């Protein structure tokens, strides 16, 4: 068994070693050696500006995570327990913000919370606009990550508690919450890491007094050419992430309950009482304000033309403007997204198998290591590729590097969504099959795979969205020019007079994300009967 685990773990370890640890270590050493390492660390610790950057980075990440859960957890519950008209479409919509380029999100946020706000509130220059943008972006992680786990928990456990006299609140705190614990911890870790290393949102919506370590690393490398200070900052960032991940790892160490697993269709019901209807309606209304209104703003801008309203911005995307056409941009994006999803799924599943079935310390350490790419500086990884990947095969400008950079960010999503599902599979099922003489491979295919495939589908949707948005180090590598959708949007926004076209292309990007999310919904529905 140990040998088998080693064989399964080998590919993910090699992949992360070569494409994450090696480039990052190389650039950090190069950076520290470019100056005096001691004084670089001293500068970071003593400089009041850098200290305030570090403090701001930490507290805005905590605040963003708490706020995202405040909105996302009730929504996850509603989607997990109630059926109502438009449920799948609504759920699919929550993934849409995740793919948007920063400038598109900034456009929506400034339209709603800037100088021309219809609500009369101008939040520019405050931390609130950053926090709200973070909630808008990361809501999907909570709704989908926790929700997909929640809907498989048998509601009769909660009902039993209620029958035995527990109040609703006590049932939630003492029954539901402990059951959800692994999924909640996973989602919290992901949201925290994303916001802790936030770059684009903070760069566009923040200012000099609201800036993260990641933005400061970018400034130090590109503007001041202080690779030594940047390396010291990146190490502090990594230490912070390491501490958080250590706490996460300890917290998720509790014994995993073997849950009676229920297909999602069986746990859904219509809201019955007036109270339930109010709760469902109210939660959806909050979600609509936070997700649907900003999306509607972008759609509105895409339909605004010089002469009024119309589809000119869309139709003009079918004849080349600045070398951009919509079909071409979508095709280029898919050319990276499909390999990225395949690589992330392959590596992520192998990693998840070894984590879920390896109960000892190795599995836990590896689990934590896998999350590190989310919390490490994408700016430095991008530089790391340049200094490390020239030998033996020069991969620095190879097209394969782009899906690989995407999958570094996407793998944790596959792992996080898969491991809780794998661990929840009852040993008794497997043992029963083994007693009946079924081979381990067949047991895996017939019992584990149907359950796991749903969880993988959730992770794969995120992997797709991460690739479509070109998340992570991709923005910081040297690449062969290929007009993907984010590149095209940036180019259109980079010349006066093409704002409407950029908005139209952003709306198409959202459409692509919605289609992917709906496809996942359909896939999940289709496999429900396997159990």
């Amino acid at each position: 068994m140990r040998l088998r685990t080693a064989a399964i773990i080998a590919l993910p370890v090699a992949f992360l070693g070569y494409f994450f640890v090696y480039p990052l270590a190389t650039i950090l050493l190069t950076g520290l050696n470019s100056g005096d390492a001691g004084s670089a660390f001293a500068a970071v610790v003593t400089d009041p500006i850098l200290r305030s950057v570090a403090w701001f980075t930490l507290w805005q990440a905590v605040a963003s995570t708490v706020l995202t859960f405040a909105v996302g957890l009730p929504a996850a519950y509603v989607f997990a327990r109630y059926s109502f008209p438009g449920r799948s479409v609504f759920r699919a919509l929550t993934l849409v913000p995740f793919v948007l380029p920063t400038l598109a999100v900034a456009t929506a946020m400034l339209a709603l919370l800037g100088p021309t706000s219809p609500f009369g509130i101008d939040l520019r220059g405050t931390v609130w606009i950053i926090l709200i943008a973070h909630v808008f972006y990361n809501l999907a992680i909570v709704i989908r990550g926790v929700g997909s786990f929640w809907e498989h928990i048998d509601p009769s456990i909660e009902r039993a508690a209620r029958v035995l006299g527990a109040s609703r609140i006590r049932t939630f705190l003492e029954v539901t919450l402990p059951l959800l614990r692994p999924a909640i911890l996973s989602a919290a870790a992901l949201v925290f890491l994303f916001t802790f290393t936030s770059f684009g949102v903070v760069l566009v919506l923040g200012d000099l007094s609201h800036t993260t370590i990641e933005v400061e690393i970018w400034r130090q490398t590109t503007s001041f050419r202080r690779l030594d200070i940047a390396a010291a900052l990146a190490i502090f960032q990594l230490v912070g992430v390491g501490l958080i991940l250590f706490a996460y790892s300890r917290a998720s160490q509790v014994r995993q309950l073997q849950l009676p697993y229920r297909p999602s269709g069986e746990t859904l019901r219509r809201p019955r009482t007036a109270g339930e209807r109010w709760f469902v309606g109210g939660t959806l209304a909050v979600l609509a304000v936070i997700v649907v209104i900003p999306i509607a703003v972008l759609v509105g801008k895409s339909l605004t033309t010089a002469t009024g309203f119309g589809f000119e911005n869309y139709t003009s995307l079918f004849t080349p403007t600045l070398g951009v056409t919509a079909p071409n941009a979508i095709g280029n994006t898919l050319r990276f997204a499909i390999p990225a999803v395949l690589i992330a799924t392959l590596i992520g599943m192998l990693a998840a198998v070894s984590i879920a079935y390896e109960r000892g310390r190795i599995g836990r350490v590896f689990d934590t290591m896998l999350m590190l790419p989310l919390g490490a500086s994408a700016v430095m990884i991008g530089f790391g590729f340049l200094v490390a990947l020239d030998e033996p095969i020069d991969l620095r400008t190879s097209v394969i590097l782009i899906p690989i950079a995407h999958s570094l960010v996407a793998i944790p999503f596959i792992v996080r969504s898969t491991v809780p599902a794998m661990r929840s599979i009852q040993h008794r099922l497997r043992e029963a099959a083994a007693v009946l003489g079924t081979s381990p491979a067949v047991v895996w295919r017939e019992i584990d795979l149907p359950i796991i495939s749903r969880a993988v589908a959730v992770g794969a949707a995120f992997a797709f969205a991460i690739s479509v948005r070109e998340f992570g180090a991709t923005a910081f590598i040297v690449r062969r020019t290929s007009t993907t959708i984010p590149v095209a949007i940036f180019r259109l926004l980079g010349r006066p007079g093409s704002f409407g076209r950029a908005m139209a292309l952003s709306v198409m990007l959202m459409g692509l994300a919605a289609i992917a999310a709906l496809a996942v919904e359909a896939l999940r529905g289709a496999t429900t009967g396997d159990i």
Partner: protein
Amino acid sequence: MNPRATSAIAAAALLMAACSSTPDTSEVVLMTHDSFLVSEEVLSEFTEDTGITVVLLQAGDAGAMVNRAILTKDHPLADVLYGVDNTFLSLALSEGLFIPYRSTEIDRVPAELRDTEDRVTPIDFGDVCLNTDIAGLAALDIDPPATLRDLTEPAYAGLLVVEDPSTSSPGLAFLLATIDTFGEEGDYTWRDYWRDLVANDVRITPGWEAAYNLEFSGGSGVGTRPIVVSYATSPPAEVFFGDLDEAPTSVVTAGCFRQIEYAGILAGTSNEQGARLLVDYLLSLRFQEDIPLNMFVFPANRDAALPDVFVEHATVPDNPVTMDPDRIDQNRDRWIAEWAAIVR
């Protein structure tokens, strides 16, 4: 996942990795910044003429590109680098990034754009200038500013948006224009000027994209401020992409900063002959006349014909600020740090 699918994906991934290119003389690699754009047929004509394919690399904005070229100078990513401007030129030269080359076309370039030692070849130039929203200022009954100093008047309070010089190339150009205009010493230095701008509620964005599209009220901008740091060629771009007859924005010709973009052959190139041919081609009329409507800057070759929209709507300021690249390189970090301390 079944084992056969697993191994198929692994094999495909390895195959793709193995297919990454190895340098040869039938290919020349051109590294540029993200704003670079050329019509496809222009590059394919070069291939038809010479048998050499051009591979384009995009390497971030101008500053990021130079930094990446420096980081990889022992084992360069490309044969030619295009888009290093006068604000980063000294840094690139002091790092010894380039092999000198005197292009066969260089005599068609005005002397004031050229590098005296031909270490780099000028390809285009443009002016960073204040742009105004014509209708927006008229509605407020305010005249466009005639000088940079005007912007500190109470009438202009809350009207200006500029870019952060530590993250934006036009932002740096504007800072340099204010330093050149007001000087480092005297009764009223550039520091005093920026303090007054801050007191007059200047808005600072990280990049041109956010400033022009999201804060500026003119043209395609959806913001509220009628004055922005942009380019002298922004009005013709508004006319061209908006399919308009008249430009909705106008250029303030005082306090403009001239950016000159150069191409250079990277030391360590494995195809110097191809690199030379490409630099010559970048200065040829075919490429030069393709520049204005793609990158919205002026061609360096004085014989290149300008498109009508440039002739009718572009402004060329009479006396743009120019600054010695060495002076920029020696002071840039200090200036940006001082600027940040003032506006923070």
